[in-house]
Protein backbone atom coordinates (compact mmCIF):
# COMPACT_ATOMS: atom_id res chain seq x y z
CA UNK A 1 0.00 0.00 0.00
CA UNK A 2 1.27 3.44 -0.95
CA UNK A 3 2.39 5.34 2.13
CA UNK A 4 1.40 8.72 0.73
CA UNK A 5 -1.99 7.63 -0.60
CA UNK A 6 -4.97 9.36 0.95
CA UNK A 7 -7.32 7.68 3.37
CA UNK A 8 -10.70 7.42 1.74
CA UNK A 9 -12.62 4.70 3.51
CA UNK A 10 -12.65 2.25 6.36
CA UNK A 11 -10.59 -0.22 4.35
CA UNK A 12 -7.70 2.24 4.24
CA UNK A 13 -8.08 2.97 7.94
CA UNK A 14 -8.26 -0.60 9.20
CA UNK A 15 -5.96 -2.02 6.52
CA UNK A 16 -3.11 0.24 7.52
CA UNK A 17 -3.81 -0.29 11.20
CA UNK A 18 -3.50 -4.03 10.61
CA UNK A 19 -0.27 -3.51 8.70
CA UNK A 20 1.11 -1.48 11.61
CA UNK A 21 0.11 -4.15 14.13
CA UNK A 22 1.77 -6.72 11.87
CA UNK A 23 5.01 -4.73 12.03
CA UNK A 24 4.66 -4.77 15.80
CA UNK A 25 4.12 -8.54 15.82
CA UNK A 26 7.16 -8.96 13.56
CA UNK A 27 9.37 -6.98 15.94
CA UNK A 28 8.07 -9.05 18.86
CA UNK A 29 8.86 -12.24 16.95
CA UNK A 30 12.39 -10.95 16.27
CA UNK A 31 12.86 -10.04 19.91
CA UNK A 32 11.68 -13.41 21.17
CA UNK A 33 13.77 -15.24 18.58
CA UNK A 34 16.85 -13.41 19.78
CA UNK A 35 16.02 -13.61 23.47
CA UNK A 36 18.61 -16.30 24.15
CA UNK A 37 21.31 -14.99 21.80
CA UNK A 38 24.65 -14.15 23.34
CA UNK A 39 27.44 -11.88 22.12
CA UNK A 40 31.09 -11.30 22.86
CA UNK A 41 30.74 -7.59 23.62
CA UNK A 42 28.16 -5.18 24.97
CA UNK A 43 27.86 -3.39 21.58
CA UNK A 44 27.25 -6.59 19.64
CA UNK A 45 24.56 -7.87 22.01
CA UNK A 46 20.99 -7.89 20.73
CA UNK A 47 18.71 -5.17 22.02
CA UNK A 48 14.92 -5.38 21.81
CA UNK A 49 13.38 -3.37 18.96
CA UNK A 50 10.04 -1.57 18.98
CA UNK A 51 8.06 0.14 16.24
CA UNK A 52 7.11 3.80 16.70
CA UNK A 53 3.55 4.52 15.67
CA UNK A 54 2.12 7.85 14.65
CA UNK A 55 -1.34 8.96 13.62
CA UNK A 56 -1.82 9.65 9.93
CA UNK A 57 -4.76 11.89 9.22
CA UNK A 58 -6.81 11.87 6.03
CA UNK A 59 -6.48 14.99 3.87
CA UNK A 60 -10.00 16.04 4.85
CA UNK A 61 -9.67 14.85 8.43
CA UNK A 62 -11.28 18.00 9.83
CA UNK A 63 -14.51 17.01 8.06
CA UNK A 64 -14.39 13.25 7.89
CA UNK A 65 -12.56 12.62 11.15
CA UNK A 66 -10.70 9.75 9.53
CA UNK A 67 -7.21 8.85 10.56
CA UNK A 68 -5.10 5.77 10.57
CA UNK A 69 -1.79 4.65 11.91
CA UNK A 70 1.63 4.65 10.33
CA UNK A 71 4.88 3.10 11.40
CA UNK A 72 7.35 5.93 11.71
CA UNK A 73 10.32 3.71 12.30
CA UNK A 74 11.83 0.98 14.41
CA UNK A 75 13.92 1.90 17.43
CA UNK A 76 16.28 -0.12 19.57
CA UNK A 77 15.51 0.04 23.27
CA UNK A 78 18.23 1.65 25.37
CA UNK A 79 18.76 -1.26 27.67
CA UNK A 80 22.03 -2.72 28.72
CA UNK A 81 22.60 -6.43 28.10
CA UNK A 82 23.32 -8.59 31.08
CA UNK A 83 26.94 -9.49 31.70
CA UNK A 84 27.48 -13.14 32.55
CA UNK A 85 30.76 -14.59 33.66
CA UNK A 86 31.31 -17.70 31.57
CA UNK A 87 35.00 -18.06 30.64
CA UNK A 88 34.54 -21.44 28.90
CA UNK A 89 32.07 -19.95 26.39
CA UNK A 90 33.62 -19.62 22.89
CA UNK A 91 32.33 -16.05 22.62
CA UNK A 92 33.62 -14.91 25.99
CA UNK A 93 35.80 -11.77 25.97
CA UNK A 94 39.26 -11.52 27.55
CA UNK A 95 37.72 -11.11 31.03
CA UNK A 96 35.53 -14.18 30.55
CA UNK A 97 32.23 -12.35 30.09
CA UNK A 98 29.44 -12.96 27.59
CA UNK A 99 26.55 -10.57 27.00
CA UNK A 100 22.98 -11.84 26.80
CA UNK A 101 20.30 -10.16 24.68
CA UNK A 102 18.50 -7.24 26.37
CA UNK A 103 15.04 -8.74 25.85
CA UNK A 104 12.40 -9.30 28.48
CA UNK A 105 10.38 -12.31 27.37
CA UNK A 106 7.46 -11.51 29.69
CA UNK A 107 7.21 -7.99 28.34
CA UNK A 108 7.25 -9.27 24.78
CA UNK A 109 4.52 -11.79 25.50
CA UNK A 110 2.25 -9.14 27.00
CA UNK A 111 2.94 -6.86 24.04
CA UNK A 112 2.13 -9.72 21.69
CA UNK A 113 -1.27 -10.25 23.34
CA UNK A 114 -2.04 -6.56 22.95
CA UNK A 115 -0.94 -6.45 19.29
CA UNK A 116 -2.96 -9.58 18.60
CA UNK A 117 -6.07 -8.05 20.13
CA UNK A 118 -5.67 -4.81 18.22
CA UNK A 119 -5.29 -6.76 14.99
CA UNK A 120 -8.45 -8.73 15.69
CA UNK A 121 -10.38 -5.57 16.52
CA UNK A 122 -9.49 -4.09 13.16
CA UNK A 123 -10.51 -7.26 11.31
CA UNK A 124 -13.82 -7.16 13.18
CA UNK A 125 -14.42 -3.56 12.10
CA UNK A 126 -13.70 -4.36 8.44
CA UNK A 127 -15.91 -7.46 8.48
CA UNK A 128 -18.81 -5.55 10.01
CA UNK A 129 -18.56 -2.54 7.71
CA UNK A 130 -18.20 -4.80 4.69
CA UNK A 131 -21.42 -6.62 5.63
CA UNK A 132 -23.18 -3.26 6.00
CA UNK A 133 -21.95 -2.17 2.58
CA UNK A 134 -23.20 -5.38 0.99
CA UNK A 135 -26.62 -4.88 2.55
CA UNK A 136 -26.71 -1.27 1.41
CA UNK A 137 -25.95 -2.25 -2.18
CA UNK A 138 -28.98 -4.54 -2.26
CA UNK A 139 -31.26 -1.82 -0.88
CA UNK A 140 -34.76 -1.76 -2.37
CA UNK A 141 -34.63 -5.26 -3.81
Amino acid at each position, binding site marked *: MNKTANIN*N*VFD*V*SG*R*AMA*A*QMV*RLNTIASNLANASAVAGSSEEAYRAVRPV*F*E*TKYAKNA*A*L*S*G*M*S*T*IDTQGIVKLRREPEQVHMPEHPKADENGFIYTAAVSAEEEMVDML*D*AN*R*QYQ*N*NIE*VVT*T*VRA*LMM*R*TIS*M*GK
Partner: protein
Amino acid sequence: MQKIIDSLSLHASSLALRSRRNNILASNIANAATPHFKARDFNFEEALNKTQGKGTLAVTHSTHIISGNSITAELGYRQSLNPSYDGNTVELAVEQMEFSENVIRYQTSLEFLNRRISGLKSAIRGE
Protein backbone atom coordinates in the same frame (compact mmCIF):
# COMPACT_ATOMS: atom_id res chain seq x y z
CA MET B 1 -41.52 13.79 -6.99
CA GLN B 2 -40.50 16.00 -4.11
CA LYS B 3 -42.79 14.00 -1.86
CA ILE B 4 -41.06 10.71 -2.58
CA ILE B 5 -37.72 12.25 -1.73
CA ASP B 6 -39.22 13.70 1.44
CA SER B 7 -40.42 10.32 2.59
CA LEU B 8 -36.92 8.90 2.20
CA SER B 9 -34.70 11.82 3.14
CA LEU B 10 -34.66 11.35 6.91
CA HIS B 11 -33.40 7.79 6.75
CA ALA B 12 -31.09 8.60 3.86
CA SER B 13 -29.38 11.32 5.92
CA SER B 14 -29.34 9.06 8.92
CA LEU B 15 -27.63 6.38 6.85
CA ALA B 16 -25.01 8.82 5.56
CA LEU B 17 -24.28 10.08 9.06
CA ARG B 18 -24.12 6.58 10.53
CA SER B 19 -21.67 5.59 7.82
CA ARG B 20 -19.52 8.62 8.58
CA ARG B 21 -19.61 7.83 12.28
CA ASN B 22 -18.55 4.26 11.49
CA ASN B 23 -15.48 5.67 9.73
CA ILE B 24 -14.63 7.85 12.70
CA LEU B 25 -15.05 5.00 15.18
CA ALA B 26 -12.96 2.76 12.92
CA SER B 27 -10.24 5.43 13.01
CA ASN B 28 -10.41 5.48 16.79
CA ILE B 29 -10.08 1.71 16.97
CA ALA B 30 -7.21 1.80 14.46
CA ASN B 31 -5.37 4.31 16.65
CA ALA B 32 -5.92 2.50 19.92
CA ALA B 33 -2.15 1.95 20.26
CA THR B 34 -0.85 5.33 19.08
CA PRO B 35 0.50 7.55 21.85
CA HIS B 36 -1.14 10.98 22.17
CA PHE B 37 -4.02 10.14 19.85
CA LYS B 38 -7.28 11.77 20.87
CA ALA B 39 -10.47 9.84 20.16
CA ARG B 40 -13.03 11.73 18.06
CA ASP B 41 -16.76 11.53 17.67
CA PHE B 42 -19.77 13.70 16.92
CA ASN B 43 -23.23 14.20 18.34
CA PHE B 44 -25.44 12.17 16.02
CA GLU B 45 -28.74 13.71 17.09
CA GLU B 46 -27.51 17.25 16.51
CA ALA B 47 -26.04 16.38 13.12
CA LEU B 48 -29.26 14.66 12.01
CA ASN B 49 -31.35 17.65 13.10
CA LYS B 50 -29.10 19.84 11.02
CA THR B 51 -29.73 17.79 7.89
CA GLN B 52 -33.45 18.23 8.42
CA GLY B 53 -33.13 22.03 8.46
CA LYS B 54 -33.56 22.15 12.21
CA GLY B 55 -30.08 23.21 13.06
CA THR B 56 -29.09 25.43 15.91
CA LEU B 57 -28.72 28.29 13.42
CA ALA B 58 -31.13 31.01 14.55
CA VAL B 59 -33.21 32.94 12.01
CA THR B 60 -34.10 36.54 12.74
CA HIS B 61 -36.80 37.01 10.13
CA SER B 62 -39.69 34.84 9.01
CA THR B 63 -38.60 35.03 5.35
CA HIS B 64 -35.12 33.80 6.10
CA ILE B 65 -34.40 30.33 4.84
CA ILE B 66 -32.71 27.93 7.20
CA SER B 67 -29.94 26.36 5.24
CA GLY B 68 -29.91 22.73 6.16
CA ASN B 69 -29.63 19.54 4.17
CA SER B 70 -25.89 19.28 4.50
CA ILE B 71 -24.32 16.10 5.77
CA THR B 72 -21.82 17.76 8.04
CA ALA B 73 -21.04 17.09 11.63
CA GLU B 74 -18.98 19.01 14.10
CA LEU B 75 -16.32 16.73 15.42
CA GLY B 76 -15.49 16.71 19.07
CA TYR B 77 -13.06 14.91 21.30
CA ARG B 78 -14.14 12.10 23.56
CA GLN B 79 -13.60 12.44 27.31
CA SER B 80 -11.95 9.26 28.48
CA LEU B 81 -13.22 7.48 31.55
CA ASN B 82 -9.77 6.35 32.59
CA PRO B 83 -7.07 8.59 31.13
CA SER B 84 -4.09 6.56 30.04
CA TYR B 85 -0.46 7.34 30.73
CA ASP B 86 0.61 7.84 27.10
CA GLY B 87 -1.96 10.56 26.34
CA ASN B 88 -4.13 8.28 24.21
CA THR B 89 -7.83 8.74 24.95
CA VAL B 90 -9.08 5.68 23.06
CA GLU B 91 -10.75 3.15 25.29
CA LEU B 92 -11.32 0.00 23.31
CA ALA B 93 -14.35 -1.10 25.30
CA VAL B 94 -16.07 2.26 24.80
CA GLU B 95 -15.23 2.43 21.10
CA GLN B 96 -16.39 -1.13 20.49
CA MET B 97 -19.69 -0.48 22.23
CA GLU B 98 -20.25 2.71 20.27
CA PHE B 99 -19.30 0.94 17.07
CA SER B 100 -21.68 -1.97 17.59
CA GLU B 101 -24.49 0.39 18.54
CA ASN B 102 -23.83 2.47 15.46
CA VAL B 103 -23.87 -0.63 13.25
CA ILE B 104 -27.22 -1.74 14.66
CA ARG B 105 -28.70 1.71 14.11
CA TYR B 106 -27.32 1.78 10.58
CA GLN B 107 -29.08 -1.51 9.90
CA THR B 108 -32.27 -0.13 11.39
CA SER B 109 -32.19 2.87 9.08
CA LEU B 110 -31.49 0.57 6.18
CA GLU B 111 -34.45 -1.60 7.12
CA PHE B 112 -36.71 1.45 7.36
CA LEU B 113 -35.56 2.58 3.91
CA ASN B 114 -36.18 -0.87 2.46
CA ARG B 115 -39.71 -0.94 3.89
CA ARG B 116 -40.43 2.55 2.56
CA ILE B 117 -39.15 1.60 -0.88
CA SER B 118 -41.14 -1.62 -1.04
CA GLY B 119 -44.20 0.29 0.17
CA LEU B 120 -43.77 2.85 -2.58
CA LYS B 121 -43.19 0.09 -5.13
CA SER B 122 -46.40 -1.72 -4.27
CA ALA B 123 -48.26 1.61 -4.40
CA ILE B 124 -46.85 2.28 -7.88
CA ARG B 125 -47.75 -1.20 -9.12
CA GLY B 126 -51.21 -0.82 -7.68
CA GLU B 127 -51.23 -4.28 -6.21
